[in-house]
């Protein structure tokens, strides 16, 4: 797979977030916009992931989360995440980012304390999962940029549509 220089990627993302802040002037709006952009990326990215990652079908949601953390993050961000804190019914887990190239150099000024800088990642995961018939929610609960010790995303399985093919005309 082709790579780009990590610093170019980091700086590009940084200036994009900065531009969004200038344009939208509101941190909550920026968070929403980042999520939306991520979603749009995710619904395209999943095809590339499936085509190039050579992974098979996931058995259950645990398997899905593992593949996102170990294969997906490796492929697109060259880092991995740890999957922990599973809820008892296996529908909710935490992805802990060990190393996040998006946040290199970044120091969040106090004025933007509510900004979820990497919210695009949540959107990507949500969008990508939606394309494989998994309805999930994803959001940051901890963020190193806002003073937490780790970056933690909470991934929650909401519903799963079964794959039926061919679709009936009502669908």
């Amino acid at each position, binding site marked *: 797979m082709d790579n780009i220089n990590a*610093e170019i990627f*980091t*700086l590009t*993302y*940084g*200036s994009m*977030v*900065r531009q969004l802040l200038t344009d939208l002037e509101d941190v909550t709006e920026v968070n929403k916009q980042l999520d939306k952009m991520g979603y749009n990326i995710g619904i395209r990215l999943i095809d590339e992931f499936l085509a190039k990652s050579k992974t098979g079908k996931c058995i259950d949601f645990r398997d899905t989360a593992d593949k996102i953390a170990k294969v997906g993050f490796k492929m697109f961000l060259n880092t991995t995440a740890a999957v922990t804190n599973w809820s008892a019914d296996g529908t909710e887990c935490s992805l802990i980012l060990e190393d996040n190239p998006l946040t*290199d*150099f*970044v*120091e*969040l*000024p106090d004025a*933007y304390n509510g900004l979820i800088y990497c919210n695009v990642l949540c959107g990507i995961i949500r969008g990508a999962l939606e394309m494989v018939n998994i309805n999930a929610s994803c959001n940051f609960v901890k963020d190193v940029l806002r003073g937490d010790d780790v970056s933690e995303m909470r991934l929650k399985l909401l519903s799963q549509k079964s794959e039926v093919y061919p679709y009936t005309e009502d669908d």
Partner: protein
Amino acid sequence: MIVCAAVIGQQNNPLYLQTLQQEGGDKSLRFHYMVHCSLDAVEERLAHPPKSLGEPSDAYLGLLYPTEDFKIYGYVSNTRVKFILVVDEMVPKDEEMRLIFRRFHTAFVDAVSNPFYTVNTPIISRGFDASVQTIMTTV
């Protein structure tokens, strides 16, 4: 020991200044003055580069001028950003100084890469504070 580190922008505008806390209160004003004075020396060096000293594009300027208690060293990047270090009586060797300046420069580059920093404005960054502090104290 390095007692003061400063970064001066292209238009000779101060971008950053940090002093090591010493007994006898805040001396940063005095260092501001010293760094300001050293800019003349920097300009002179840039106008008349010494021919014998290393490659022509050497960023390290060496000793700019000594005062009674301190010695002032300079370094200029290709983008005309000036790095000034004020050293007290214990003077490191030129080679060490070069290395310190290079680390200082790298720290500056990282701080400037922060998307929330506007170029050519004073640097207010906890991360940069910390890295400059380590550079100053680990001599």
